[in-house]
């Protein structure tokens, strides 16, 4: 066992409901070896540094298609990484969450093959449909990149949602699993955005946080999964129907967020919150 070869990760990668070929690749170029190498260090981060606790993992389907819809929390992508890790480290039924990668990244050398090996394909509607048809789990942030750049004063306020994910869920008959990530905004409190620098590096934003480095503080984080939501339709509904569904998802996410915020004794919490099972034992 080492930083790049975690026993639990290795065991759970082997149990993923995904078909791998003789060389350890799936039909989209996902690589078992790369999964173990990438998820092992993030499992350490999950357990020891951000001390993540996941609630409601039983709401994530053990197999079959689904869309996990989450809020963005903290501008560094730690939210996505920790949600993906919580799915992978779920010993009951490990799942691989697959994201849709930014076009900019899939044109870049090294980033492109790496993202592919971890199951994050170019963000095209065709890819989302292909993955769902193949009974995979997608991770979607409907706030988009703007959501990741929320300032500390706007913490845990959801921005406007895109509607594409609902049409996708309807078309592909996939359940929507609302999800809330708590703690990201405290681990990386964005006080200010350096606009000129963002323009210079052509990124969406360059945040300044009190720690001054682009690395989160060791604040304990929590992930909450809500009950799967099923909607009627085939994706061709008029906008007002779709908007109603989007609002439904948004409301359940807001509920999860407020439950999560209320459950914390204080916002800057440095101790791990006990998990759902641990609480029951006296």
């Amino acid at each position: 066992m080492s930083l790049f070869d975690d026993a639990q990760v290795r065991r759970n990668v082997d149990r993923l409901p995904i078909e791998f070929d003789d060389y350890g690749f799936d039909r989209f170029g996902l690589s078992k070896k790369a999964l173990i190498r990438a998820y092992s260090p993030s499992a350490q981060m999950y357990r020891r540094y951000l001390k993540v606790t996941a609630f409601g993992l039983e709401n994530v389907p053990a197999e079959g298609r689904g869309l996990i819809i989450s809020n963005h929390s903290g501008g560094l992508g730690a939210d996505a990484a920790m949600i993906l890790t919580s799915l992978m480290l779920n010993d009951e039924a490990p799942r691989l969450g697959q994201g849709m990668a930014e076009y900019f990244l899939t044109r870049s050398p090294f980033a492109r093959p790496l993202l592919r090996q971890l199951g994050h394909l170019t963000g095209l509607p065709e890819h989302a449909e292909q993955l769902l048809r193949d009974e995979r789990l997608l991770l979607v942030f409907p706030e988009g990149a703007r959501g990741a750049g929320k300032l500390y004063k706007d913490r845990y306020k959801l921005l406007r949602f895109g509607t594409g994910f609902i049409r996708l869920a309807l078309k592909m008959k996939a359940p929507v699993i609302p999800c809330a990530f708590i703690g990201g905004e405290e681990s990386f409190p964005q006080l200010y955005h350096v606009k000129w620098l963002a323009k210079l590096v052509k990124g969406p934003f360059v945040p300044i946080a009190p720690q001054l480095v682009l690395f989160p503080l060791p604040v304990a984080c929590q992930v909450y999964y809500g009950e799967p939501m099923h909607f009627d339709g085939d994706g061709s509904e008029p906008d007002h129907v779709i908007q109603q569904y989007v609002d439904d998802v948004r409301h359940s996410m807001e509920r999860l967020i407020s439950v999560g915020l209320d459950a914390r004794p204080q916002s800057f919490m440095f101790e791990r919150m006990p998990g759902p099972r641990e609480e029951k034992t006296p």
Partner: protein
Amino acid sequence: MKILITGISGTLARGVAYRLTRRGHKVIGIDRRPWPDVPDGVEMHQADIRKRPAEDVFRISKPDALVHMATVTHFTTETEERYRINLGGTRKLFEYCHEYGVKQAVFVGRHTVYGATPDSPLYHTEDEPPLAGAAFKELADLVAADLYAGSALWRWPELNTAVLRLCYFLGPSRGGTLAGFLSKDKVPLVLGFDPLYQLMHEWDAEEAITLAVENQLRGVFNVSGPPPVPLSTVCQATGKRAVRIPEPVYPALVGRFGFPYLPPSAIAHVKYPIVIDNGAFVEATGFEPRYTAKQTMEGFRWN
């Protein structure tokens, strides 16, 4: 059935001819190149598809079906000649089909017509436009030929036309585009890129073409076998050394220092994948590849 195969001396076409004769069909072949040990049951004409003798074959032998495999690539043929053969030749053949009452035409094209771009999806379906000509001008004639063959569907509806877009194949003949790329000990990869490559066994490819004729397919069909594998794995499994070259110097190195030749605009095909969805073909023919990617690549390594 009496089946005419153009370009019969080619790698795949010979295999298709063997398969069809073995299943009791009569095979007639046309090719500029000779086929010295042509098997019994195959009537061979050494002729150019654009010339009179080819028309005579249609007129006299009256084939029921045409399998058009007489297309050439930039590896062997200059631009002008390529347009004459791939476009002029295809046009002539379809006109003969119409004129002499051929019932079935199968155009054997390539999956590379979809083009390799960073933003294109995996698993192309037949309704997507073939974009290869935009970036890779050496493929423009094959894209045009593919679309021209497809246009026969509305031009001559009584002729059952099937356009096959075949993925790369590897096999004991060591022929074909991918085999050429893997022909030297070293294979040039672009540093920081490792696209998925879709390949099938040569014998599976021959079987697929045979099935297309026998099932009297109509329409455009992607033809592929097992799921794709990364190019680096292709190199490894076929016993080649993958050399990763930074993109700016790539064009200067290919064709030299023991690397196979590639035209400069082909670099996209070494950076980005072209992966096709064969669902429609499988549904229409029940095709099932016999060889996995591993068997195909290791067979290629050791034969």
